[in-house]
């Protein structure tokens, strides 16, 4: 599980995930997500290279989303693969976090 963080214009932060966000994968990025959530107000999570996610991974993303939105910030997902998209929509998370087909759309969604 890899995670790359990059600053984009207009105060937007992009976090790109790569690999399997299963129980171990989620544990590997949990702390870094907590730090991001505490520090950033506009976060885009790029899921292009995320191969797998289950509820433990969703949990990490949701804790992050709740922290950011509770202080008035915004978070959006981008580029989810079909399998990941299926899990996102099955869990109903798409109803509270903006899920976008492209990175540009996700950046726009957080107000970048």
């Amino acid at each position, binding site marked *: 599980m890899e995670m790359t963080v990059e600053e984009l214009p207009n105060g937007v932060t992009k976090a790109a995930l790569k690999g399997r966000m299963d129980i171990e994968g989620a544990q590997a990025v949990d702390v870094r997500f907590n730090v991001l959530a505490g520090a950033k107000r506009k976060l885009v999570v790029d899921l292009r290279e995320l191969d797998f996610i289950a509820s433990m991974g969703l949990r990490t993303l949701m804790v992050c989303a709740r922290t950011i939105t509770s202080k008035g910030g915004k978070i959006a997902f981008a580029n989810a693969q079909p399998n990941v998209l*299926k899990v996102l929509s099955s*869990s109903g998370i798409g109803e509270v976090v903006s899920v976008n087909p492209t990175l540009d759309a996700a950046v726009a969604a957080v107000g970048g």
Partner: protein
Amino acid sequence: MTQRRSVEDDLSAVRPAAEWVEAILIKAGASDELRNDVQVCLEETLANLILHAKPLDGGKDISLALNASAEGATLTIADRCAPYDITDKARLTAPPAPGEIRIGGNGIKLIRALAGRIEYKAHGDHNELRLEFGADAKRGLIRAIPALSKVPKDDLDTLILSAEAVSYAAGATLVKQGEQSKFALILLKGEAAIVNESVHGDAPLAQATAPAMIGEIGALSQVRRTASVRAKTDIEALKVSRKALLLIAKHEPEMLVAVIAQTGQQIQNINTALGLYAAGLSALERDDFDPSILTDLSNPGADLGEFAEAFQRLANRVTQERRSRAELASAALIQGAMLPAPLDAEKLAGRCTAFGAMKPARGVSGDLFDLTLLDDNRLMLVVGDVCGKGIPASLFMSATVTALRLAAQHERDIAALVAQANDALYALNAMSMFTTLFYGVLDLEGGQLTYVNCGHNPPLHVTKNDCVELVGRGPPLGFFPGHKWQAHAVQLKPGDGVLLFSDGVTECLNRATEEYGDERLNALLRRTRGQNAEALVRTVFADAEAFADGAEQADDITCVAAILA
């Protein structure tokens, strides 16, 4: 071939288990989606067991069994923990409030969403969760349908391959009533409502919850759809052609036996319903219909939906009508009490004959008449007609009769008497009703008839050679306060008669909507001279009825006659 493996009670054992599953699925040629679904469910189940389950004694003994093909997979997870049935509906948490970001509770939701079929068994010393995916789930679901439970695996696979996978959004129509029946539907996921479409809207007949087969009787018998099927939730289903159904039937007669059993059950239901209707009808006839019968009849089966509704409307109408008729009947009874008692022939002492009768168009009348000896020599003759018909008219009629009788107790002068009654009626008359009235008093010794006519059609004076109207008419009663009417008088000779009548007689209509008319009445009276009063009144009634020739009586008919000896 089923492959097995045990899993340590530690989160670090989840990933190796996932890799084991992945390897087997790849080797079997499973699709990306199938592999992902199995692995998500595996992780959720294992995480649940490792983090939350309580071992019964000793270790949790978690073990996996996987059977995979290119089209489907079956994953069985066994454990020796306290039972935890994830198929229990109560395990589902309520949906989050709008905007609420909920962290946990996604595991079971994901398993339910991604596994095609879930089966949980607690065996006492161990539990088994069986998760079926792809074609395995379809087979499992189809086998859970009684009619298809014994279809061999090869036929089942042929059926699944030949069937069209369809999905419907909640609210969509799966089958339309009246259409040709070309296919059956096997519901794999979701709930549908079977309804009968009628002009009065949908009548619910039954509910089908996956796994279930619907429309197979229609597809096999090729009758048109007898009901519509609507999706209550999102639905996944297989559309099975008649041909595919027949193919299964050929190899598996049990399927046909099951369908016939189901058809027989439906016929039985319809017969039961018809029996209830027959009982309901005869109860209606006997007038002891219990409306609670309708509850028993509310869900009679596809073919009887519309009939059931029609029957309910009929039954309600019959009982309502009967109720209002009973009310009318009691009103008619009260009104009957307002009519005069028959005259005492002894008191008339052969000086004249007199008779009055009334035939209401409905249960109660707006006409009135009175025929009473005021004293030894004076015979009161009254006919009136309240505007309108039915209950309101009859109430005003009763008030008029009462007012006249009260006034008559103290007042001998008939013009003054009528004026008093008029003022009393006016004071009570909130509904702006009025009465036409002819009030006459016949002196039996002298043969003089004094009368006041308040807007009533003129009575006829029948003499030896003629038949003439009694002249002099004022406004009707109850409308003009303080009005003074003028009394008139006419001298009757022995053998002369007078006929008072309401316009129901002369305005009586036949089927061709022609009026009976003044001329006809006049001619009848000339023709039938010499009859006594009762015979005369009955002749007029009979002639009007013969003229109507079965046409419905539109207005109340009233006649009063007096004929001097």
